[in-house]
């Protein structure tokens, strides 16, 4: 390949508006900030878990505190590893997705392969969900194991550019490692909830037996304080962890929209797709609660709202951000 003098650079819309500060920010910086936030949040979750385990140990048996913490963290790590390996197959199975047929779904497969080339990732496996409700989700721990599932309703409702936008959004989730992060975070929250339930039982039954045997002498002030702290943490930790997870999920929807627009160089396609999905008034997609956050828009329509408890930002907000790019 012999090449003459370089010509002018094409315009790349890789500078976007940061949703938090309103400042212009490069996509790469945004992605890097996202990764840092993931590490901080992951560390915080483990610390929260360890704190609960430690307080549990203090309340029950101070001598075994170290063992408790080790067991709790090991539990969380085991659950996260399980999520790392199996979350994708589970999500696909729960959603009733079947592998796309190369002939029957040629159009969808072509669109996906094209977008994958644009994104510079290996083409993900394509799955189809038989439902008239337009939606899609992505799963897979890294781009090499990516999978995208699309409802038949989506392929019928959208034109090519709009479908490209949605597929690019899903591919962005895989490329930004959102799926892996979300499933491992969910596993850690699961471990905290499990611990809470164990402690609850321990306090109800264990507490009763101790009162009867060692009435006045046992415990002491330290143990009492640990008990109070533990109860507070046990009540608050799962809620706090869930709120954090949802906040991250919302931020990542914006980032995936921006990345998707960047991959397709066409924010309008994605914005139009969102508008069409917003205006869809047919039967909703039945999705179990555990995997709703994975979808392009929350399958339960009224849950696409602003607020601490929603996994997705309001659709209109996403559209207006795309149209401002």
């Amino acid at each position, binding site marked *: *390949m*012999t*090449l*003459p*003098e*370089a*010509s*002018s*650079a*094409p315009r*790349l819309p890789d500078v976007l508006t940061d949703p938090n500060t309103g400042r212009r920010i490069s996509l790469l910086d945004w992605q890097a900030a996202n990764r840092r936030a993931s590490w901080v949040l992951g560390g915080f979750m483990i610390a929260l878990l360890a704190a609960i385990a430690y307080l549990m140990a203090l309340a029950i048996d101070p001598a075994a505190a170290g063992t408790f913490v080790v067991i709790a963290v090991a539990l969380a790590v085991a659950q996260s590893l399980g999520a790392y390996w199996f979350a994708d197959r589970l999500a696909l199975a729960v959603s009733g997705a079947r592998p796309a047929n190369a002939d029957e*779904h*040629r*159009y*969808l497969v*072509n*669109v996906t*392969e*094209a*977008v994958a*080339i*644009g*994104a*510079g990732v290996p083409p993900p496996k394509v799955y189809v969900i038989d439902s008239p409700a337009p939606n899609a989700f992505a799963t897979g721990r890294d781009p090499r194991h990516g999978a995208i599932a699309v409802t*038949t309703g989506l*392929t*019928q409702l959208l*034109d*090519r550019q709009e479908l490209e936008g949605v597929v690019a959004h899903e591919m962005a989730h895989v490329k930004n490692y959102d799926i892996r992060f979300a499933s491992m975070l969910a596993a850690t929250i699961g471990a905290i909830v499990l611990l809470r339930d164990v402690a609850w039982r321990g306090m109800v039954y264990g507490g009763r037996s101790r009162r009867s045997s060692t009435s006045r002498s046992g415990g002491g002030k330290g143990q009492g304080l640990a008990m109070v702290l533990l109860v507070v943490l046990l009540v608050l930790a799962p809620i706090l962890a869930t709120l954090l997870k949802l906040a991250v999920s919302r931020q990542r929807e914006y980032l995936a929209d921006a990345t998707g627009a960047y991959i397709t*160089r066409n924010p309008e396609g994605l914005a139009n797709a969102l508008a069409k999905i917003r205006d869809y008034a047919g039967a909703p997609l039945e999705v179990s609660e555990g995997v709703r956050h994975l979808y392009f828009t929350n399958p339960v329509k009224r849950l696409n709202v602003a607020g601490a408890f929603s996994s997705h930002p309001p659709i209109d907000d996403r559209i207006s951000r795309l149209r401002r790019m």
Partner: protein
Amino acid sequence: MPTTIIVLVVLAVLVLVGINVYNRIVTLENRYQNAWSQIDVQLKRRNDVIPNLVETVKGYAAHEREVFDNVAKARAAMTQAKSVDESAGAANMMTQALGRLFAISEAYPELKANQNFLMLQEELAGIENKIAYARQFFNDAVLQFNTVITTVPGVFFAGPMGKTKHVYLEVPEEEKAVPQVSFGAQA
């Protein structure tokens, strides 16, 4: 004694930075080559699909000779192209020839109802689309490469490594609109 240590540390840092920059340039050069081969693969696939398409269309519109000639010419230019520039030029020619082929097919309802034709049409639309994306990825790779070899510290390595700026692929404006087909009912 401390001077020696300082000199050694500075040297070590310089060597590490050098290795890093060298590897970065090689990585980006590979990405550039890979980006080109992505385009090449799609161009070859398109050339493989075209004879089938031409045969199918001929069955209904044999007298549209000029259109078939243009496609054949573009195909010959594709197979003879050697440089990136020639390939890109021939690819643009082919895209335009195919655009006209699909335009005339609008006038033949029986052709448009042919299942084989519809399949080929979607296949070609898909390939065109992939070429567009591959080209975009190629230009991204060129941008990254050119940025690294023209900024510090990469600029000090580009000369000794014999690296010069790569060229962007220009996308002809009319190409973006061709071929526009709706497949909603098929999916």
